[in-house]
């Protein structure tokens, strides 16, 4: 179990289809910290997040009231409304409390769309609805897998800013982030994962060399051309 005031979490070795995808490791989680897990495709980022969420065999299950997990590309099989999706976050508490759901929709800046169906809003708005589901649980720790994947730069920035604010308000936030620039810009700390091992664990501002090495790019080279909107609340 992850203690409320953070601490060391040990992760057992994980094999999928007889292939070791994650080696045994320990990492520290702290409340009030936005931790980004970065690394190339196949490095084991999603597996590490699932292990932290207690969803893999051999890992200890988490208290669903205290840990909220959002898988990559989460979507609803049915055309639920934004409100109905957010309401699912109350299932761990076995209640239908309205106040936390309203707060979650407000936090995720999607309250005005609460009666719209999630299949009839934009991809960025639908992602916010899925995030609102995690927020509605009011957990101590958020585990989010690529919450900005497939979003345009402005929408991605805005979600990373939301997560940074959430961490600054005292929650623990762990985010698997493919885009190294977003991680460096918004996270407090970055874990670089390479071939199932933690290659680096350091403050975000110092992470560029380790990221460049893991991605196999020359030191300091921008991973890809960027188009970033003006950022009026720089995190560092």
């Amino acid at each position, binding site marked *: 179990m992850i203690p409320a005031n953070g601490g060391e979490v040990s992760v057992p070795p994980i094999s999928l289809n007889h292939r070791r995808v994650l080696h045994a490791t320990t990492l520290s989680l702290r409340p009030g910290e936005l931790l980004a897990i970065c690394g190339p495709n196949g490095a084991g980022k999603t597996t590490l997040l*699932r292990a932290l*969420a207690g*969803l893999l065999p051999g890992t200890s299950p*988490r208290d*669903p*009231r205290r*840990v*909220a*997990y*959002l*898988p990559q590309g*989460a*979507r*609803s*099989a*049915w*055309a*639920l*409304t934004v*409100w*109905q*999706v957010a*309401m*699912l*976050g109350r*299932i*761990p508490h*076995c209640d*239908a409390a*309205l*106040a936390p*759901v*309203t707060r979650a929709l407000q936090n995720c800046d999607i309250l005005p769309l609460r009666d719209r169906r*999630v*299949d009839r809003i934009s991809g960025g708005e639908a992602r916010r609805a*899925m995030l609102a*589901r995690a927020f509605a*649980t009011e957990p101590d720790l958020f585990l989010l897998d690529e919450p900005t994947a497939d979003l345009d730069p402005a929408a991605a920035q805005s979600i990373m800013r939301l997560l940074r604010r959430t961490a600054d308000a005292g929650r623990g936030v762990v985010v698997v982030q493919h885009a190294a620039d977003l991680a460096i810009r918004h996270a407090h700390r970055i874990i670089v994962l390479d071939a199932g091992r933690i290659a680096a664990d350091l403050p975000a501002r110092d992470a560029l060399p380790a990221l460049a090495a893991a991605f196999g790019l020359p030191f300091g080279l921008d991973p890809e051309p960027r188009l970033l909107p003006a950022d009026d609340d720089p995190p560092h």
Partner: protein
Amino acid sequence: MPRTSEPGTIAHPVIGLAALVAILLVLSLLVGDGILALPDQLILIQIRLPRTLLAVLVGGGLGLSGAVLQGALRNPLADPGLLGITGTAGLGAAVVFYWGLAAQFAPALPLGGLAGAAIGAGLLLAFAGRAPSGPSLILAGIAVSALSAALLALALCLAPNPFALAEITFWLLGGLNDRSLVHVALAAPPILLGVAILLRLGPGLDALSLGEETAASLGVPVARTLRLAAAGTALAAGGGAAVAGGIGFVGLVVPHLLRPLLGQRPAALLPASLLAGAALLLAADLLVRIAPLVLPLSQPLPLGVLTALLGAPFVVVIARGKPAP
């Protein structure tokens, strides 16, 4: 300001459906086979009452298990027949016909159907494994269906005489005519138990809307929910098939009829699907009885044939309409 999830949309359609079931129930007691006359007490209790009660039980069980399966498997085309239990119930009844047991002991037929449904449910849960996922449950259902279809074809090939063959075939078409209170007494316990199991799965089905992994992270026991959905369907739909034969499309169509009224949240559909299934089968069985008044029929229209005739166009509409996102 904050409001409940579906303001005003839960209560009214359910009350309306309950009223519809009540009206159809009275009509079903009053309308006979091709005659519109008030029945005497004997006909009312021995013929109309069992038929009416079975329509409510069988239709409700099919409607509810359709809604639960579509939610559990996140598939708008799921139907109780998908799990193969209806097939094994038919096989159980066919075996009874095959040995001519029904002629000596009337309840042998529903008992054979129940035994077939129970064996099918056991096979289904065994094939699906200890920790089933949606796809593994569907594959297990396909395996059970294929097995029962093969064994049924074998029973038909080896039928001892043409009468047995005709009897098996006709029974498999499904119907509620000539059933007695014994049938009701045999079918009610499994159907009611199945309904009780299925009605409790609502929150788990809602969580499954976001996928099995998210549901697990919300603390929902996914494998247990799927096994209960399968077991509840085996009881509710298998118990019905054991007394009424193969009645298709009710479980498939009912949730689709309700979604425009109630929204798509799976739990919101459960009680309404129970009532709408009952209403649909009561109405279909009334049509079967009224049909000889308007159509030149030498035989009563089999109920399963009627539901399939009405249901097939719905499948086309579902397939052509916008699929769930």
